[in-house]
């Protein structure tokens, strides 16, 4: 069964860092450009994230995500460049359409912001196994029940996709149309979705029983299957990230 997470199983020093450090890095990459409000800082931040992604050996996996994001960003550049209300200075003209400086600068801000967020998140997503992330969060005090819920999604979705393809085949074998006009395709939606949902809901009963029998609701402190993995440098990295963030804040207020 195909996994839905983007995690790439590899060996690299980025993979070795604990999820908390990576979460802190996201906060850092998110807030530093917001505090300092400078293009240079945003550029550097995006650059650092991309270098880290390359160091982790997962840069190829980022291409589908970035290409989807770029598709939207191109429309942002076009629309803001042409129509932004603050537009005044014409930068260049293509036929009857004029591209304005203000709109393009704003589009650049948006592009950098989105790139920055996406690349920082991708470091976490591509180099951390979802179950490791959840386990770390549970150690830090998240409810283990919620932890179970999150981990089990990764198990249930492939199951449901398998049952959906079975049902699609069965309905097609009975002669149901799934291609053609919009009205035909709309009509196909419910007979395909309904049985999957019903089956999944009925399964929850068994799952709930199985969990309760295994002491899901017991209040005894839970133990962990794996030992906690920490990198020797992670405390230092966390401290440096926090110091830089606080330093930037202080500089912004008093500088």
């Amino acid at each position, binding site marked *: 069964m195909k996994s839905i997470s983007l995690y790439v199983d590899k060996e690299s020093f980025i993979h070795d860092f604990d999820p908390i450090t990576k979460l802190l890095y996201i906060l850092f990459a998110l807030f530093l450009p917001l505090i300092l409000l400078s293009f240079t800082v945003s550029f550097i931040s995006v650059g650092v994230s991309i270098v880290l992604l390359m160091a982790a050996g997962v840069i190829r996996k980022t291409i589908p995500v970035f290409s989807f994001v770029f598709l939207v960003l191109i429309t942002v550049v076009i629309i803001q460049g042409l129509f932004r209300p603050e537009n005044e200075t014409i930068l260049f003209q293509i036929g009857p359409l004029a591209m304005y400086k203000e709109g393009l600068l704003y589009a650049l801000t948006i592009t950098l912001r989105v790139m920055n967020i996406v690349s920082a998140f991708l470091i976490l997503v591509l180099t951390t196994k979802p179950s490791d992330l959840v386990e770390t969060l549970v150690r830090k005090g998240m409810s283990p029940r919620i932890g179970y819920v999150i981990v089990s999604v990764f198990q249930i979705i492939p199951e449901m996709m398998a049952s959906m393809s079975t049902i699609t085949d069965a309905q097609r074998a009975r002669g149901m149309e799934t291609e053609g006009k919009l009205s035909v395709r709309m009509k196909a939606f419910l007979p395909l979705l309904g049985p*999957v949902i019903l089956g999944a809901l009925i399964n929850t009963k068994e799952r709930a029983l199985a969990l309760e029998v295994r002491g899901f609701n017991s209040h005894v402190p839970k133990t962990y299957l794996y030992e906690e993995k920490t990198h020797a440098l992670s405390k230092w990295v966390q401290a440096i990230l926090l110091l830089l963030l606080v330093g930037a804040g202080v500089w912004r207020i008093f500088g």
Partner: protein
Amino acid sequence: MKKQSMWSLRLSTAALVLIPVAVGVNYIGKLLAQLLKLPLWLDSIGTVLAAMLGGPVVGALAGAINNIIYGFTDPISFVYAITSVAIGLVVGILFFKGYISSWGKAIVAGLIIGLVATVVSTPLNIGFWGGQTGNVWGDALFAYILANTDSTWLASLLDELVVDVPDKLLVVLISFGIFKGLPRNVVQLYKNNEKIETLD
């Protein structure tokens, strides 16, 4: 039988296992909409259904977890978790107050939920995309309004409105239809009543 408040945070095991199923249903709905090349997202059927079955708390949790999981395939989704939580909450409240009990009422509720989703999403769209939604039709309208008025907010609000309201309306109607078709023993499973806390 004393009815427990819909805000109870003590979730039964059945209500908790409902959440991953809800996320799965969202995922399948979205996939199916893409497979059938429908022009809508239809990616919140699970959240709505979970809110109907388990109440606003389960709905909101399902919404939040849904977007956290989507975030693992598309990082921007993390941001829209707020919208999903709002959808789960509003559906749960409306349903448990009895405002989604017939097809007519479901239409009104669908419109309300579409409006709520629009109002919550618009500031997020402006903050992250300069006001666009990424949907072709909505963005064309966005460009048109931006060219003719000077309000990014109005353009962005309408951009989201034309996409979200039909989508959420259809999602609520589909979910209501599925809910009505569910066997009673399945519906009863998630009711958080003291009396039926034990399963079978």
